[in-house]
């Protein structure tokens, strides 16, 4: 067991936990932020994606001891009122079916668009290919990522 001070969604949390515990389970079981999902546990599906600093990372493979001073952003902290351009686009296109993978999809897309605000189709494919959607909403996700890029540029 060890103590960690984590900056999550702009708030500091003091946690006492085994240093090998992945960020995913610290978020879900200890801080009760359950928007970040458990899908595979081996960084293959992307359901657990959060932002570490400005990078999209798989929180199931991120031991809490590796976080250090970096800010963590989860789906709950992406925007205050659910009005981040990516969330707005997801609502407008009405992307989800079951919805379980979508937080991970949104966190991947939002980190990607911040770095690449005007992406090509190929770049979008490259960025989103690590997130599995079992319901098969990929065509809508693609539309929503493009729409979010446009919202970003027009605001």
């Amino acid at each position, binding site marked *: 067991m060890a103590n960690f001070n984590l900056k999550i969604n702009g708030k500091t949390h003091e946690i006492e936990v085994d240093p090998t515990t992945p960020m995913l389970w610290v978020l879900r079981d200890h801080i009760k932020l359950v928007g970040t999902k458990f899908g595979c546990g081996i960084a293959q599906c992307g359901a657990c994606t959060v932002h570490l600093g400005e990078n999209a990372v798989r929180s199931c493979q991120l031991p809490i001891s590796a976080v250090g001073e970096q800010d963590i952003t989860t789906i709950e902290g992406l925007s205050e009122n659910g009005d981040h351009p990516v*969330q707005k686009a997801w609502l407008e296109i*009405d992307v989800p079916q079951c919805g379980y993978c979508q937080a991970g999809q949104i966190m991947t897309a939002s980190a990607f668009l911040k770095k690449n605000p005007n992406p090509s189709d190929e770049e979008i494919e490259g960025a989103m290919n690590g997130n599995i959607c*079992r319901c098969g909403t990929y065509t809508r996700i*693609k539309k929503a990522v493009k729409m979010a890029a446009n919202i970003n540029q027009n605001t």
Partner: protein
Amino acid sequence: MTHVKTQIGRRAFLKNTGLASGGLIIGFSWLNSCKPKAVPEKEMELALKMPKEWSEFNSYIKIGENGVVTLMAPNPEFGSNVKTSLPMILAEELDVDWKMVLIEQANFHPEKFDRQFTGGSQGIRTGWPGLRVAGATARQMLLMAAAQQWNVPVNELTTNNGTVYHKTTGQEIGYGELASLAKDITIPEEQEVPLKAVSDFKIVGVSKKNVDTKNIVTGKPLFTMDLQEEGMLVAMIALPPFGMKIKSVDDSVAKSMPGIKDVFTIQTLQDDYERNFFDTTTHTKIAVVVGNSTWEVMQAKKALRMEWEEISDSEFVMAGFRGKTTIKVPAGLESTEEHNEKMKEMSLKKGNVLRRDGNPEEAFLNADKVLERTYTAPYLAHNCMEPVNCFAHVTEKEAVLYAPTQAPELISGTLAARLGLPEENIHINLTRMGGGFGQRAYGHHLVEAAVISQEIKAPVKLVYTREDDMTYGIYRPTYTATYRAALDKDNNLIGFHVRGGGIPEHPVAANRFPAGAIDNYLAEGWALESNITIGAFRAPRSNFIAGAEQSFLDELAETMGKDPIDFRLELLDRAAKNPVGENNDYEAERYAGVLELVKEKSGWKQSEKPGIHRGVSAYFCHNSYVAQVLELSMDSEMPKMEKVTAAIDCGIVINPDFATNMAEGGIVDGIGNAMFGEMSFTNGVPDHKNFDTYRMIRFKEAPETIDVHFVENDTDPTGLGEPPFPPIFGALANALYKATGRRHYRQPFITDKPSLVG
């Protein structure tokens, strides 16, 4: 105005005050977090203003004094959007403003709601008549209350958007003001309740946003997996391979690990228990680790040292659609290689005759040419994104469960029997499911969680790892089918024969097309026993046989020198005008209708664009008709899906945008499973346990464009969860043939293994 005769939904109108309310014991506020549709902010504030008093009209409808309406979503939601579309039917007949509607997910209450089952693409089809009557009855009660109030005949009154009007006197009154008076009106008989004409629909047929999208995109806790309750423990299970059972569990290391409360084994179903339909047939004795947090329990699970021993031949009795059956479970450690050999042998033997028209044997004897092809497909795992999990709190008096389940009614009795509690004290609360696809119709996880909670005397959340989920054993069976067509010297089709089999069931639907279109027709089926267990998987059986049949028809059309769409239309024309046999379970005109529509919308008459290769397919299952044209290009050895055009006849479309979403999803899922889906076994051990080797379709592999068209008609609605899925396997195979010159007979199509047949 039209009337329908139905008793569906009638139970819901009976005022029942003695209902169980176990779900209220634990006040998870998120379960009541019903939000209105995506509407402009100002209107949302208005709609959110909660009323001081609710008037309950029936199990489905409550109206507040301020005009806010609560509609219950009766069926479990696994992504097909029934939480939005079923209440749309209520709202239509009630004639309210959709902006004033709140939607609440019902928990399992068989006394209050009919058929709380999500599966078989039946939610909309079976919900339609009862929900219409439920909505229209409440509207009629409001009209009767207004008639009393104003002392005018009820037939002079009209409604619009939550207001009752009397045109001659110019009076009007909102539903909210009437609600408390109307709820005590004697419930009118069904024949006194008029239903709207389809042409008057304002809500049904107009796209509405999914009522949960805002909650999903902001990460709200909607799933059982998200449930965090004070004092709740976490449990995980450890399973033997198929053909094995637990001999011993060495928990000495695991038990002493941090955060671990206990390690033990449970018997989920007793050996002499007569199983209900959908009681799982897989592992009944499993090892359990219980502790404080998921990660700690996960680590302890890895530290278990378990010994297995081989099972012996056994059998058990199970209830089924056609009464009780005895299921045999053979001993042995099974492997895919051995399965494939056995299936090849069986394909050469005669199966059970399922249907025989004319004299097929003679037709084949007299044939000038016979085309014969064999198709195979492997087991598939469901791989819902939310791994199996369940919350249970069992006390001496009752059991409270929260579960991702498609079928609470199929497990409620099993829970009561296993826990030794009366069934009315089993409370199953329905949460949003992170996928279902048939897997969540099997309630083993509810039994496991409840038995664990009873054992450890605490609220517990059972969580499967991805590996547990993938290796548990509710697989789509492995299948094979051999098709034969007899052609005379003029290339006329004179005989047709399908022989299909699988482990442990055959996939043949003997009375479906092309039965009814060919004079000499024979369908046979066979099955082999196995201890590898299976379950419903999106469009059971159709998910294989559609691809096989539609690939064969494509090759047959080519052999006969015909256009593949025209060939199908010729057969359907025969089936419509002069059907063979009387037991054909499809409507040939509607079948032809989707083919005609897809032909037009895909531009089939124009020749293929350079570099683009296309295939067509059409299938009828689960009461809906779907035809698809898939266009692909080749990027070296890999196909790239350019476009799919789909034509669908599912009767009245309730929510067009989401219906389109379902069709898109079914198509993407089908392409994924056809190209990559495969579960195999070595000595009873599943070869794939997680997404590193079980290949799922990914973003890049989905079609660039999916163009969905619905046949416009006033036929009562049917479902869409399954029908768009099976035919795409055929459309893909047929397009791949055009691209590569090679027919694909064996799924998955993209594999590094040598192709056995094709």
